[in-house]
């Protein structure tokens, strides 16, 4: 098959067999002019806020990097907080799960002294005689004995602190 390319005219205007195409081009030009006259630019060029637009902050790469780092830090902080919260919740759950029937020996009990006397202030004549006594070092049987003594000597012992 012989190579027979169709040459495109080099001049601006088409000629000869392509008169139809030239007419089409002219018609396109007229149609474009008609459309442009019928529908002129909606926003006048004077109203286009070009001065405002050029003063708007652009997309500065440094600013984008700063925002990205800040976002990463926030995400890392939130993750850490959630993880720590989970750990604390686990610890608390472990404490509450200890058996209730754990027997603590009486020797291990810590007896705190109350800040105020249980039976109110002593009358002034007794205050010089009766002194507060600490029974922290007593064992269980000794405590029973002390309580028995207190019961039998109600009139003399005025106060006891546990």
């Amino acid at each position, binding site marked *: 098959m012989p190579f027979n390319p169709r040459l*495109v*005219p*080099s001049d*601006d205007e*088409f000629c000869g067999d*392509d008169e*139809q*195409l030239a*007419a*089409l*081009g002219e*018609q*396109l*030009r*007229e*149609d*474009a002019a*008609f*459309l*442009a006259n*019928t*529908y*002129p*630019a*909606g*926003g006048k*060029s004077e109203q*286009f806020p*070009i*001065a405002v*637009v*050029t*003063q708007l902050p*652009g997309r500065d790469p440094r600013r984008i990097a700063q925002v990205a780092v800040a976002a990463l830090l926030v995400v890392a902080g939130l993750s850490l907080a959630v993880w720590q919260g989970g750990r604390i919740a686990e610890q608390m759950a472990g404490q509450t799960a200890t058996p209730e029937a754990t027997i603590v020996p009486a020797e291990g009990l810590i007896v705190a002294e109350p800040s105020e006397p249980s039976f109110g202030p002593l009358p002034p004549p007794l205050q010089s005689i009766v002194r507060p006594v600490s029974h922290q070092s007593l064992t269980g049987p000794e405590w029973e004995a002390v309580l028995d003594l207190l019961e039998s000597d109600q009139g003399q012992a005025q106060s006891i602190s546990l």
Partner: protein
Amino acid sequence: MTADSGKANDAVDACFERIHRAALVLTGNPWDADDLTQETFLIYSRQADAFAGRSSVYTYLYGILLNLDRRMRRQLGVRRRKLKVLWEDRTAAEPAMPAADSREEVREWKQSLWGHVDHLPEAQRHALVLRFGAELPYEQIAQVMDCPLGTIKSRIFHGLAGVRRRLQEETAAGPKIVNLPTEGQNHAI
């Protein structure tokens, strides 16, 4: 006012109407043309520093316009494909509002030859818009589209031939007068 905004302002004053005219024949309706024109100048105002002055402001602006048109059509294509999927699932019902295509502004554009140009391949369509819509010389079109001069001439030639073929097919299919209301000319050749 900065130097950039001053330069951009000059470009707006000088080129707004011409860019809008090209946008109008590209998009086919005045509201999309307005959006496209304003977005073109918006991009130009932000890239005014990047404009090295190797070409005229016109060619630079037309380059932005064609890129925006390309992007808009791509997005429109994706949206249409999604709508097509939805539409096929939907039962046939009367639309509550008339379609946007039935608006008078769009109908006029469709009845003009530019409605036929819209069906051409992108490269031919852009070449025809720049040649007959914006009335740029071949050399500037080659600059905007970043192509050799011969390629531009070929695209315009084949684009016009494609429009003629469409008109002939339309004439063969049935008598349909294609003309604008004020022209009184039959486009079918």
